[in-house]
Structure formats: C-alpha cells, structure tokens
C-alpha cells in the first residue's frame, strides 16, 4: 500500500492504494465519488472521463498511484452551463454516459480555446463536425448524440 494525496473536487484526500488500483476504482470504491462511471473499463467508451488538472482523461486506464499530487475534477465538482443545456436539449436518455460526456465537453472546450487542432480542423469554428470529432471518445448507447451536440453547440456559441 502506498499513501497518495489528491485534491478531488476541491477537497484534499489522502488514501492508501495498491499500485494496481485504477483512478476510477479509487474514486468510486475508496472515496465514494461515483459520478465517473465504469462502462467498458478499457478506454473505449469514455464514461469514466474526469479532468486531471483540467485535462480530460480516461480514469479507467489511469493507475491512481500515477496521479499522486494531482487535482481531479469529476461531475460532482462541476457547476457549468453545459449541465442545464444537456437537460434542455435532451442530451441523454439513461444518463449513464452523461457525467463523462459533460466532463469531456468541459475539457474539449478548454482544448479548443487553447488552439488544439482536431482531425477535421479546417472547417469553420466549433461547428457540428468539430464537436462530433472532438467528442468521439464518448459513446452514448442510447444514441442521444443529436441532443449532446446541440447542448455543446449552444454553450460554446
């Protein structure tokens, strides 16, 4: 066991972890922060997306021990216009992917502001093609993509 210290949603947490514990399991099972979801547990679905020092990552593929000293933000620590926009635009059905979608969208908007290109950059501004490409790491099995794109478009516009 190794003691690690992380700032999670603004509160400093110390916890003992074995090196093989993922950041996702540390958050959910050790700290009771269950906003980040375990969808595929292999980096394919994005339901576990959290922000590490503001940068979006897949918590399922992150070993908690590698995030010692870092600042982690999950949906529980988010207060952002995207949340109401998702409600207004029906950006979900079952809601399981939503915490990851919103954390991912927050990270994505920051990346866009910072000038990060995408595979479709060349189109005009943060249009639908850009949003779909930049959000492709977050799957929605209910297929609420149109609402998700509309919600992000409204908040970014």
């Amino acid at each position, binding site marked *: 066991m190794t003691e690690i210290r992380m700032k999670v949603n603004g509160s400093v947490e110390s916890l003992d972890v074995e090196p*093989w514990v993922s950041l996702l399991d540390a958050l959910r099972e050790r700290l009771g922060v269950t906003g980040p979801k375990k969808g595929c547990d*292999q980096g394919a679905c994005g339901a576990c997306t959290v922000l590490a020092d503001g940068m979006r990552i897949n918590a399922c593929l992150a070993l908690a021990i590698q995030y010692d000293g870092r600042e982690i933000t999950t949906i529980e620590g988010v207060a952002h216009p995207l949340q109401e926009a998702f409600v207004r635009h029906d950006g979900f059905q079952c809601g399981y992917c939503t915490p990851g979608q919103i954390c991912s969208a927050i990270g*994505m908007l920051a990346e866009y502001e910072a000038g990060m290109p995408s595979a479709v950059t060349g189109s005009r501004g943060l249009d639908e093609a850009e949003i779909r490409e930049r959000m492709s790491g977050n799957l929605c099995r209910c297929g609420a993509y149109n609402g998700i794109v509309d919600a992000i478009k409204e908040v970014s516009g």
Partner: protein
Amino acid sequence: MRPFAYVKPADVAEAVRVAAEPGARFLGGGTNLVDLMREGIERPDTVVDVTGLPFDTVDELPGGGLRIGALVRNSALAADGRVRTRYPMVSQALLSGASAQLRNMATVGGNLLQRTRCPYFYDHASACNKRSPGAGCDALDGFNRGTAILGVSESCVAAHPSDLCVALAALDAIVEVRGQEGTRRVPMADFHKLPGDTPDIETALAPGELVTAVELPPAPVAANSRYRKVRDRASYAFALVSVAAALEVRDGTVTDVRLALGGVAAKPWRATQAERLLLGGPADETAFRRAAETELADATTREGNAFKARLAAATITATLRDLSTGGTAR
C-alpha cells in the same frame, strides 16, 4: 489485475537498472499497458513508472529537425506549431488516432511500443503465437478483416496499430534508446520487426532498454505532407489502411517523395518500391497508380482482408494526387 511492485525511479540510470530485471515493464501513459495487464496478457512483476523523467520536451535540432522527448503526450505533440508547419503528417497522424482523452494520456514512447489490437491476441481462449509462442494462430482463418497483408508469415498476421509510427517511418525518424550500457540510435526502419517465426519479438529493443526520444531529421519535403486514414467509422477506430505521404514536384517531375503505410503490416510499412518508381518521374495519376500497385503486388491476402490491397493502392494514389494538386491537407 495481477499484483505487481511499483517503482518510480529518480533518474534514467535507476530506471534502466530496475527494468533490466526479468519481469519488469516500463509504464508511460498506461493507455495500452494498463489495459493489457487488466486482461492478463501483460503480467509484469515490476512496473517502472518513467513519467517523472525529464523527457517531456520538443527541442530544435541543427538544420531544422526536431527532437521529441519520449514522454511528450500525443496531444501536446499534435498541437506543436513546429510539427504542424514542418511535418503536418505527424500532427494529422496523431489526431486521427484514439480519442482526445487517450491522446492526453498517451506518450510518444508508448505509442512506439503499443501492441497489436488483433482480437485473437486479446482473447485467451484463442490460439496466438504472439501471446503464447508455438500455440498457433486463429486469425489465419478467423475474423481477419483488420490483419496485415505485407510482410506476414504463417505464424502471425497481426497489424501494428499506430498512426504516429507510419508518419515517423516515412520521415526516417531515429529512435533514441537508453540501456545500462549507454545510449544508441535505432532508425525507424529497424525498430519494429516483421513476425517471421517469432511474432512475440516486436522491436529491436533489448530487455530493459528505454526509449528516451525520437528525432525527426530535417525534411523540407514534409512541409507538403498528409496522413490519410481509412477506417470502419469516421473517428476513434484503428486503420484498415492508412497512408503517410510527402511530395515535392518541380516542373511536373517528382523531386522528392516519402511514403509509408499503416494497417497493412506488423510494422509501419515504408513503401520503398513505390518511392523508387516515383522519384524523377512524372507527377501524374498514371505514375501514382503504377507505383502504388507495384508496392502492393506482393500482398498476401486472406478471406477477410483481400480488399486491403486495392484499398491501399487507391489510398496511396488519392493521397499523392491531393499533394500534387495542392489539395487541402487535413
């Protein structure tokens, strides 16, 4: 996940010393290794976390080249203004791979060392010579849509999954490697191995050797370059076929060309035959197609991937056409 010891070395000397022990693995961003450990395919006794080592910058080389630290994250490299201007295909290759979350985690060194996504490699119930040497290969007559068609053997038809490596191969990148005996430099062409009878041996690295940097030599031709990826969905999928190409044309004649393919071999495939045919010849559709078809003439296809030879030739032709007519790079 199987328990392991975790070491975070203070410097590179300690890293390569610890990793020289049998059963040790280096850990970078974790996007491939953590997944493989969870699946029980990688079973290290010791994980050496190198993310604290100071290999996270992109630095200028004399003559206009770049030295990319092995711990630079994929997203940071894709956004680097020098990379986007001098080697656009490198940025495009990175941006076409994985998802934004994974690119924020994944390192350049780890990208070189990622393992195949052949489904039989991941499935313990299947025979796989790469996972269990001598066990056989269920991909040969199985679901082999994503498998290789060049440089394959009867032991293994797995394809290398990297996009970045395809661009690095086209650019004659040099991989800087550190071991207990010191530093050595390995050309990209020699870094990854074809399967032969030993598909479990994937790179030229000796046990315990650490990738510390990748050098991009100066290449004026690369300012006019493109990475084009063909896959089963628009984003977030591995390549069926991809092409990294750079082209320089003067008075209708090809004066410099670089060409490499992804998704078709166990290594990023440098299309040397096509390059030789193109250099000094006309920059037209007929020449592009002839070069592409010559490169693919030796393809060994199977039922599920027979389409790849034509797809690869067509993608090469289209990419060169775009570059020769100043088509917008993406």
